[in-house]
């Protein structure tokens, strides 16, 4: 019997989240491996090297980078250039290569992209860098029909703000002050354990019906937030 394996690639996340993911999947009997390549021509080879012997690539998690900060009127055109290459392009090549591997195995598989809630909400400072995450989700959704015959499913998680990420922590604390009279009860951080459990749910081979889903894990921030500038106009 082949050893089920989850491959994780993309960008670094907070160590507490990575620990939660490793712990969760290991407990379920998965080998947890990490891909590091960025170039399209190297990714397929890295996958072949990692998924060897009796291993079978059952699941893949692509981690989008934390949204870069930037403003439209600033000089930093790089905020769009870099994120499109860092997130969208790297995500495309990884997911394409993983899909080909799963097709070659003939086993199907589950793919999850871990994006950020800022990709859905026009949030001052964070949003431009997050456009790539929404783009990646849409790209994956367009592939669903093509990958369905191979029993490959792709879903997206939009995680909320991290307690341990310094910039996100500062941002949320400012939002809490701004929204203190707005009656929004759900401005909370998303726990790493919640994210790991949801990743597992979406990669569970026993569950077939999730495909093209986008799950917001933000305690209701996306739905309840009011538009508000961080600084006075």
């Amino acid at each position: 019997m082949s050893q089920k394996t989850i491959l994780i690639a993309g960008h670094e996340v907070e160590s507490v989240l990575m620990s939660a993911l490793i712990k969760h999947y290991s407990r379920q009997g998965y080998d947890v491996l990490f891909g590091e390549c960025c170039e399209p021509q190297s990714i397929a080879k890295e996958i072949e090297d990692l998924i060897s012997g009796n291993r079978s690539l059952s699941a893949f998690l692509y981690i989008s980078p934390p949204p870069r900060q930037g403003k439209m009127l600033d000089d930093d055109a790089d905020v769009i250039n870099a994120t499109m290459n860092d997130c969208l392009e790297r995500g495309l090549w990884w997911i394409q290569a993983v899909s080909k591997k799963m097709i070659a195995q003939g086993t199907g598989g589950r793919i999850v992209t871990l994006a950020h809630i800022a990709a859905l909400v026009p949030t001052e400072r964070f949003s431009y860098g997050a456009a790539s995450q929404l783009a990646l989700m849409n790209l994956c959704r367009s592939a669903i029909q093509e990958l369905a015959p191979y029993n490959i499913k792709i879903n997206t998680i939009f995680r909320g703000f991290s307690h341990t990420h310094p910039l996100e922590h500062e941002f949320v604390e400012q939002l809490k002050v701004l929204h203190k009279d707005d009656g929004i009860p759900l401005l909370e951080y998303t726990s790493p354990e919640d994210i790991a459990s949801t990743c597992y749910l979406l990669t569970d081979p026993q569950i077939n019906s999730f495909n093209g889903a986008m799950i917001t894990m933000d305690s209701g921030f996306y739905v309840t937030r009011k538009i508000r500038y961080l600084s006075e106009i």
Partner: protein
Amino acid sequence: MKLQNQVALVTGSGNLKGIGRGIACALAQEGADIAVNYVVNPQEAEQVAHIIRGYGRRALLVKADISDPLQVQQMYADIEAHFGRLDILVNNAGVCVWEPFLEISKPAFDHAVNINIKGTWECARLAARLMVSKGIQGRIINVASGHARRPMPLMGIYAATKAAIDQMSQSMAFELARYGITVNQLWPGFVETNINDPKPELATLEGRKKLLATIPIGKPATIEDLGAAAVYLCSQEGGVVTGDFIKIDGGQHIRCI
């Protein structure tokens, strides 16, 4: 006239059959002078300029490939030198790529992303700067697509770029509202323009029939329909609409958004 004495830049408007031409002419009919951006065909762009001048408006031809930031900078320098201001940007230039997900190639990816995302962003950024520097409460319209939220097979890259434009437009609207600049999107459905010539469904009569059957109202939108929507968003009546989109698709994406 709703746009008297205003100046508009419409990217990708040098094609007689294109959405850009429809929008440029509609804005001109309402009194706006137009910068007609084109890349490949100066003769056809000149014909568009000729139509605009026929409405009694000024027209300036500006050649620029919007995927090249230096050409975009030069385009804005030319517009400022010629007209002295910019009130309206319609970010219309774009490309469509049809490739199966498993066969998407780097050249195709770069081509679409450099024009549809990075070019759109750069044009909007420089327009916003020009408007802010002159205290103009201008209008930016980004032409996206229903595919921003309704991805389809073979259209992965295109759908990705349009989703990025959707998200970026909302961010722009949020950031620029404090300067009185509105940012909205037009989402055309199927329009009979050159961009759709390679569309696989249109290769046969049967395919075309099937495509039209996906439009509840039974006919494609026209470039004039797009022009009318652009006029509304640029007019005084549309001045409080920002961060939003108008679908002009005969109901094609009605169940998907």
